């Protein structure tokens, strides 16, 4: 009986290990297919021409596969949205974890979570039909669908990410530090600024990076709101065409394993590398944070 039992236990263990590897297997598969389908484009263009080329005319004859405008667009919308979402997200996190009463926090937190749950297509739709015309009128700009509008919508998508991770980080700062500071005659604000936020800084950085990672990979919003012009923007009210938008709008027309198809997968590689870099950095920070946490015991 003991032998049988041991065997079942072993079998179950291996079964679970097997399934857990499936999860990783998916990531490996994703990478495999991205590279497998994307790399052939470099038979046509060099990596340099691809990444640094200024013109994206994939269906012209002869075609141009330069994605610099797309990369720049992605970076700009991400940075601009970060400038909105970081203060908003972090300050909301501070409010939730340090200032709000339990009752208020119990209302605000679900609001933030619901904001996170809004489908991106709805936010894109909102930006397109309401925010765009509004921006046009208020700023007297010719085009409502532009870098700024897209950044604004992206900011609303990344605020919840930033806020909830940052809040976790602040919340996990031990109460003993709060009390120590207050007991020395510091005000709540001083305690927050000088003790709580520095102590939660690595968690907050993780939050910010993950928020930006979410923004750079977001598709529907930039597809519907950014304007779709594959050019280097000259102002924040210029239309742009970030990488995910290009993939989403052109994939359906690119014949299987044609140049255009390979080029779009290659954009996928670039996008994937960006988000992976963001995630690795976030993981590094989180890791270091954990170690210093242990050291303090």
């Amino acid at each position, binding site marked *: 009986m003991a032998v049988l039992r041991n065997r079942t*236990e072993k079998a179950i263990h291996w079964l679970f290990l097997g399934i857990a590897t499936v999860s990783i297997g998916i990531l490996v598969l994703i990478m495999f297919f991205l590279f497998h389908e994307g790399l052939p484009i470099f038979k046509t263009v060099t990596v340099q021409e691809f990444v640094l080329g200024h013109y994206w005319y994939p269906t012209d004859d002869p075609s141009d596969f330069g994605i610099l405008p797309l990369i720049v667009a992605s970076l700009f919308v991400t940075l601009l949205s970060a400038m909105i979402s970081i203060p908003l997200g972090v300050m909301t996190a501070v409010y939730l974890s340090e200032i*709000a009463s339990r009752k208020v926090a119990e209302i605000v937190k679900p609001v933030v979570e619901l904001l996170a749950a809004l489908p991106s297509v709805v936010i894109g739709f909102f930006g397109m039909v309401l925010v765009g015309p509004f921006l046009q009128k208020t700023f007297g700009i010719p085009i409502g669908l532009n870098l700024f509008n897209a950044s604004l919508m992206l900011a609303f998508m990344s605020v919840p990410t930033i806020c909830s991770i940052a809040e976790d980080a602040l919340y996990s700062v031990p109460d003993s530090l709060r009390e120590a500071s207050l007991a020395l005659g510091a*005000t709540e604000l001083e305690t927050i600024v000088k003790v709580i936020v520095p102590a939660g800084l690595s968690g907050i950085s993780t939050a910010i990076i993950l928020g930006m990672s*979410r923004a750079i990979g977001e598709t529907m919003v930039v597809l519907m709101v950014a304007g779709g012009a594959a050019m280097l923007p000259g102002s924040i009210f210029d239309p742009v065409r970030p990488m995910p938008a290009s993939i989403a709008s052109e994939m359906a027309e690119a014949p299987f394993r044609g140049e255009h198809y390979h080029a779009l997968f290659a954009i996928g590689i670039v996008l994937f590398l960006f988000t992976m870099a963001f995630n690795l950095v976030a993981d590094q920070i989180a890791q270091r944070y954990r170690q210093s946490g242990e050291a303090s015991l």
Partner: protein
Amino acid sequence: MKDLSEESLSDENGGIKGIFEKGAGLGGRRRMQALWFGFFRGAALINGFALGLILFFMFSRGWQAISWEFLTQPPRDSMTAGGIFPCIIGTLGLALGAIAVALPIGVASAIYLNEYASSGKIMRIIRLGISNLAGVPSVVFGLFGLAFFCIILGMGVSLAAGALTLGAMTLPVIIGATEEALKSVPDTYREASLGLGATRWQTIWRVVLPSALPGILTGAILGISRAAGETAPIMFTAAVFFTPKIPSSIMDEVMALPYHIYVLATAGTSIEQTRPLQYGTALVLIALVLGMNLVAIIYRSKLRKKMR
């Protein structure tokens, strides 16, 4: 007896030598605090304002479109009239299919990570892999689904391919939620069970999973709602513009609510005319997704209260 007021607590009175700035300091510090707390509160308010604004517009402009016909009929007249029934069915099919794929794999993976795996380099890599999987942009999932499910596995544009793609995308959500649920089961339960001569699997099956179940369910609901709202992964793998009948097999193409909003708003034949339909569809999608989230949130907060 006199009150211990500002003055009586001032430095002269308290015996502290002249190193502290006199009384003046504190008023300024308080004012600073009030100002900044105002900003913090304002930031939080903006979130509520944003959500309120979006909901308000979608509701005020969409509710007229909602009718029994809208919810139960396919689109008619070049999609300028009729309903969105096939989209609702398609979205439900995709989301349920996705969760049917992701839930068993996700829960089993989380059980392995939390209950079996010992920490070490390999574990670290697996974890890193999963956190990276969570960070992969949805459009890249779409590319993967197109290349792998639709073309290599020959599923074509179909409910099955879409559900699998969404399932892969939902996986990290499920793993995360399940791990959290498993972590919240106190270790003493595990030790008590093992101490009574239960095997590891018996412990997991009889003690750990029942305690973690509500948390796992919450995660599953959130996973479904996430899958239901995604557009980019199904654009190339499952969704089409118009197919009025209910899919008869999982190899059929489907309509889906998020994609329907997108095409009506950007690629329809008469965008302006169909605005009410767009708002209506958006409202239905929001109701579906936020409804599920609300259920999950309420359920979870009840759970947390019970745990205390």
